[in-house]
């Protein structure tokens, strides 16, 4: 009887899960408001209203203006090409600035609990500033607030936290901009009325969820005939990404005309899966990835568009922003910040600093990049 109860409970829970899935044709997106861009470049976008500064502030931070500072960088995880690139940018900036020491350390898996522990330990060991890329915007907030309360400066990059848990966030590209670039490329390559699927990291990863939400909104507005098959999770795992992409190809057969890779791991793995299935030219692959990983597929004409920004620049900018915060030259209400060789970067959305528009790597330009 008790066994019956457990079984009944579990199947009820399972039913609840599938029932709630049924009313959403797409998944992997968050529930935050979306702001799709205009369909064609010519149309003007309504300029977002200027928002007042909404970041946090450290309490009794030591005055280190112009003095040497020690920073720690805690990315989502260490040991993957993307965060190696941001880390390289930070080292470049540290060298250019001359009075900054940055160390990159973090979990070997993208787990929020581990990331929190790393940050917590660095608060105890004592640093002047923490740079982070959040695995979860809300879960990371308490530990970042703890850092602020101990007088440690906090600047985010790549993946944001709740705004009041950090001072500034360096945004590599706006979500709706990435979404537009991705959907436009797919519509152009696969066709306006074709079906596609998405390979993402996990449904709870904030960036990917945000992009998918914006892609959905933009596609509804500008390419309503595109068909959304499904979104699958593949962590940031090369093998799993390849397997998931292969499964999608086998499962949907001729219906599948395109694959989106939402991570720098999923995109090359999806391209590899399409290559192995001998479907180059039949299944379009569009995604976020670093150029070096994509060069073989782009040169073989299997992939036409790779969407990204320059992660080395992102790490570089984050370090300059941190230095400017410590020096007091970047204060709440500022409209731009000087970022060394990158020039002046604009403040958007209250407390975010925009690196620039997304960049699309193609066969013509990909050879010029090496990261």
């Amino acid at each position, binding site marked *: 009887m008790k066994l019956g109860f457990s079984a009944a409970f579990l199947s009820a829970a399972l039913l609840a*899960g599938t029932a709630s899935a049924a009313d959403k044709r797409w998944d992997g997106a968050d529930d935050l408001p979306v702001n799709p861009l205009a369909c064609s470049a010519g149309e003007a976008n309504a300029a977002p209203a200027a928002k007042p500064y909404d970041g946090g502030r450290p309490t009794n931070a030591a005055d280190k203006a112009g003095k040497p500072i020690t920073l720690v960088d805690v990315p989502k995880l260490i040991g993957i090409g993307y965060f190696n690139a941001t880390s390289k940018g930070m080292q470049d900036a540290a060298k250019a600035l001359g009075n900054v020491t940055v160390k990159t350390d973090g979990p070997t898996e993208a*787990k929020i609990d581990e990331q929190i522990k790393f940050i*917590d330990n660095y608060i105890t*060991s004592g640093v002047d500033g923490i740079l982070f890329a959040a695995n979860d915007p809300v879960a990371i907030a308490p530990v970042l607030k703890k850092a602020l309360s101990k007088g440690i400066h906090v600047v985010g990059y790549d993946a944001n936290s709740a705004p009041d848990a950090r001072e500034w966030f360096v945004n590599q590209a706006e979500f709706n901009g990435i979404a537009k670039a991705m959907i436009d490329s797919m519509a152009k390559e696969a066709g306006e009325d074709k079906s596609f699927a998405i390979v993402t990291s*996990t449904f*709870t990863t904030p960036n990917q969820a945000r992009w998918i939400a914006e892609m959905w909104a933009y596609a509804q507005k500008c390419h309503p005939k595109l068909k959304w098959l499904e979104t699958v999770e593949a962590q940031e795992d090369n093998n799993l990404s390849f397997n998931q992409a292969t499964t999608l190809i086998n499962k949907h057969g001729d219906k599948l005309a395109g694959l989106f890779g939402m991570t720098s791991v999923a995109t090359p793995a999806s391209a590899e899966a399409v290559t192995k299935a001998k479907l180059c030219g039949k299944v379009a692959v569009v995604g976020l990835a670093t150029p070096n990983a994509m060069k073989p597929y782009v040169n073989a004409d299997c992939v036409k568009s790779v969407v990204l920004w320059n992660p080395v620049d992102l790490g570089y900018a984050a370090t300059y922003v941190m230095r400017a915060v410590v020096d007091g030259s970047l204060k709440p209400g500022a409209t731009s910040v000087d970022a060394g060789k990158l020039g002046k970067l604009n403040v958007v959305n209250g407390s975010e600093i925009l690196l620039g528009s997304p960049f699309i790597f193609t066969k013509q330009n990909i050879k010029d990049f090496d990261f």
Partner: protein
Amino acid sequence: MSEIPLPHRAKRVVPWWLLRHETMLAVILLIALIVLGGLNSRFLTLDNLLNQGRLTTEVGLIALPMTFIIITGGIDLSVGSIVGLCAILLGYSWKVFGFPLPLAICFSLLVGAAAGFLNGIVITRVKVPPLIMTIATLALYRGLAEGISQARSVRGYPEWFYFIGQENLFGVPAQLWLLLIAIVISAIVLDRTIFGRTLYAIGNNETAARFSGLPVDRVKLIIYTLSGLMAGLSACVLVSRVTTTRSDMGIGYELDVIAAVVLGGTSIFGGVGTIWGTVVGLAMIQLLKNGLALTGVKGDATIVVIGTVLILSTLVASSLQRRREGV
């Protein structure tokens, strides 16, 4: 053997070297503390040590029933997934079903117990080996967590809920009190009750235990259910600490938990182990990780050190055991 201070302990049930293993581990821990404390002045501060207690509570709560299970020669690999499932159902029942939060907490604890109960009933009735059954439910419970949550994080809990995860009580992290109480109860149960002694009997020789009229299946059912319940409790503490519910919570916990239990001298073959050892094992892993991090050792190198410590301690334990058995 006169080393054993408790006269009612049967010699065969608790071999003499067991106490030595834990004493040895405690000595190593002490040395590690002194060395790491010497390398970094911020390591041996009360603030840091209490904070480490806060961080280790979730794993610690599950390590206690895991000690019981491993003593019987069993294993529970599904605990991390139960943490995920309970966390999701806590958030989901509150936000989507509209339960009041206290009821949602009770519901999620109940689910944890039910998940453990399911493990126990299949293991005892269908005679599926614990390893197989809990690998299966490791996947099943995680799948349920992901299916139910549909990738939606649940956030924005009321302020009072953060008490257990983030506040202090008499200067000590609130969840650490919970862990301390659980430790004391588990130690008494294991050491001073018939139930506790039955666990050793099952681990030493299950057939003999059955012939002695011990309620083997009922005892097993209880410990697997307890394991699920404690994983549920751990989920509540975790959600309260990190303020958000995600379906990937608790991934890999089973390994942290088992590492602590085994490092603490509990034999994976059953029949041997103490709560005291598990507590030392937990402290050892957490403080090593923390101490190494504070001294500037990077995350990936820390994992290597922890792995090495585990292997070494197991080697020492088994060589001591061989010497005792005269092999």
